[in-house]
């Protein structure tokens, strides 16, 4: 790829300095999102996927702080950008969609007020033009009779429609990057299907890059180009969606796939991962997954490197699956 990617995150560290100690919510995370591509950021609760998204938007609140690394948005380092620069980017070039649209929308303002305000915040246009643009965008995300809907309040929309409004607001300035944090998790299956279809179409049409944060592997499988799997604040595996899901390298990815009911034969026990996610306050030395890992060995007490095991396939593991020649216990030890 010759052009600069839309987003390149290098060794990002976001730590929370609490009274009880430092929580390394995001610890050495790197990934790239090329123009027009969708990155699926997958992990379970507490894995740091949301904090990664918030860090890109520079929305991490005290006591959290970006403690290191670079967030290169079209070459500009957002980790060092001033608050003013961020304000001109947020909602304009980078937008975010949240899980609960009721949190994004102001309940006491009509949709038109909120949308026109967003348009005029970044573009010098008349109120009428702004309104026009708001209406067009609402139509684009599949809201019927946008003229009437502009005059409604958020509570008059259903959950799916509210999420569409939130997506429309994110799209108002045709951003280069959208960070979507579990936007379809709270929705019903048929409504989720509709939203995913719209997003897929929009990403293809506008060339917007997307970071799709979710816990649901099957959503990512249909939507994303690349996938990054997070565990305890670190990316443990990264690569092309199809390849990662077919031949996972990291035992955690493998365990996650085994836990999905539809991948298993009906009625048979699921290949679940034993134990539970460790507390970020006292992670074990070395690999954070070792206590739950069926392949754990002595060597896992050291920090595993994030290394390329197969072409364009990285994993943070000493003893990955699906790699024939290196990385057996004997060789590493």
């Amino acid at each position, binding site marked *: 790829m010759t052009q600069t990617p839309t987003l390149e995150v290098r060794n990002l560290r976001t730590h929370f300095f609490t009274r009880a100690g430092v929580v390394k919510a995001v610890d050495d995370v790197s990934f790239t999102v090329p123009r027009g591509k969708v990155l699926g950021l997958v992990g379970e609760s507490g894995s740091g996927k949301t904090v990664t998204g918030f860090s890109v938007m520079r929305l991490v609140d005290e006591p959290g702080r970006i403690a290191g690394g670079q967030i290169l948005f079209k070459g500009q380092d957002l980790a060092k950008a001033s608050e003013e620069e961020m304000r001109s980017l947020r909602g304009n070039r980078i937008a975010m969609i949240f899980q609960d649209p009721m949190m994004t929308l102001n309940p006491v303002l009509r949709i038109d007020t909120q949308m026109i305000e967003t348009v005029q915040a970044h573009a010098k246009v008349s109120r009428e033009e702004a309104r026009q643009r708001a209406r067009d965008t609402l139509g684009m995300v599949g809201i019927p009779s946008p003229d009437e809907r502009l005059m409604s309040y958020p509570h008059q929309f259903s959950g799916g429609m509210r999420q569409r409004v939130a997506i429309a607001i994110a799209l108002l300035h045709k951003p280069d990057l959208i960070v979507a944090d579990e936007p379809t998790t709270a929705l019903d299956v048929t409504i989720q299907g509709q939203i995913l279809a719209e997003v897929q179409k929009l990403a293809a049409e506008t060339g917007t890059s997307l970071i799709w944060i979710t816990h649901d592997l099957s959503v990512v499988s249909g939507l994303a*180009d690349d996938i990054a799997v997070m565990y305890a604040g670190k990316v443990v595996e990264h690569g092309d969606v199809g390849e990662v*899901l077919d031949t996972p390298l990291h035992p955690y990815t493998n365990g996650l796939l085994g836990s999905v*009911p539809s991948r298993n034969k009906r009625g048979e026990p699921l290949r679940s991962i034993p134990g539970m996610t460790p507390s970020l306050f006292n992670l074990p030395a070395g690999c954070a997954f070792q206590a739950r890992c069926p392949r754990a060995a002595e060597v896992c007490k050291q920090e595993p490197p994030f290394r390329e095991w197969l072409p364009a396939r990285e994993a943070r593991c000493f003893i990955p699956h699906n790699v024939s020649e290196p990385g057996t216990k004997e060789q590493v030890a």
Partner: protein
Amino acid sequence: MSTTLNNIPMIELVNVSKRFSKTLDFAGKFAKKLGMPVREEVVHAVDGVNLSVRKGEVVGLVGESGCGKSTLGRMVAGIMPATEGDIFWQGQNTANLSGAKAKLAKLQTQMIFQDPMSSLNPRLRVSDIIGEAPLVHGMVKRDQLETYVDEQMRRAGLDPSYKRRYPHQFSGGQRQRIGIARALAVQPEFLVCDESVAALDVSIQAQVLNLFMKLRQELDLTYLFISHDLSVVEHLSDRVVIMYLGRVVEEAKAEDVFNRANHPYTQSLLNAVPRIEARKKAFQVVKGEIPSPLNPPKGCHFHPRCPMAMDRCRVERPLLKEIAPGHKSACHLNDAA
């Protein structure tokens, strides 16, 4: 799979309905007197449902939000009365059961809820949460309670040394296990699980699902498993019931539902489920929204969203008919063919 020759179903619902109505307040009544168009709002949460669960069977109940699946589950578990219709517990009408029998029927049906944090008393220790009911019902003597609780915890995959703790000291998955241990402590035969794994992470969800399957074999349990997640239901159930806006639209063996879905709603639901095997595929879309149960469409509730709707669907309610052995569907299209 355990097959019992017992022909009497564990539980049978005959034409059961549940309506919730909002009575008018003073201002509303006054406005009505003045001739304003206000009326009492009635929600048909469950509308004429027939359902039976045989002994030893796992029945999956699937539907989107507002389809009445939780209300149905609550009526089955006996914690909510039906507005209309009869519920039979092992062949006996629950409305006519009295005294000890009614108590037994209730005890033998236990419910496991979605959110363990709101269904466990935050101020009770785990040992009390699990041990209270069996003690009250005289299933265990006080001096044996300790060992009894230990046994229940171990069976649900919990370390008995944690029994002096409070619910907030556990993780989500463990809390769900406490809920399971509490339900099993009164030795039920029938469990109603209402979205019991929906709030859990995938890896924890898999552990709890495995626990459900293990307990089924060990204790010969019968389940009504309510979920919006088709893949979970597919994995666990022998038979699947699909609901839409208060009515059952399809009912069949799990294989039949997932391989030969008949009702257009079931088909579109199956199409909308994202699957890992499907890479970069265009998502299939059912048009439209789920209508409000306050004002459901006439005729077949699904007709405004149905790609195959005919004139008849707009006026006449389709009945649940058998289209193949053990496979029922409520769709007018089956009459035409």
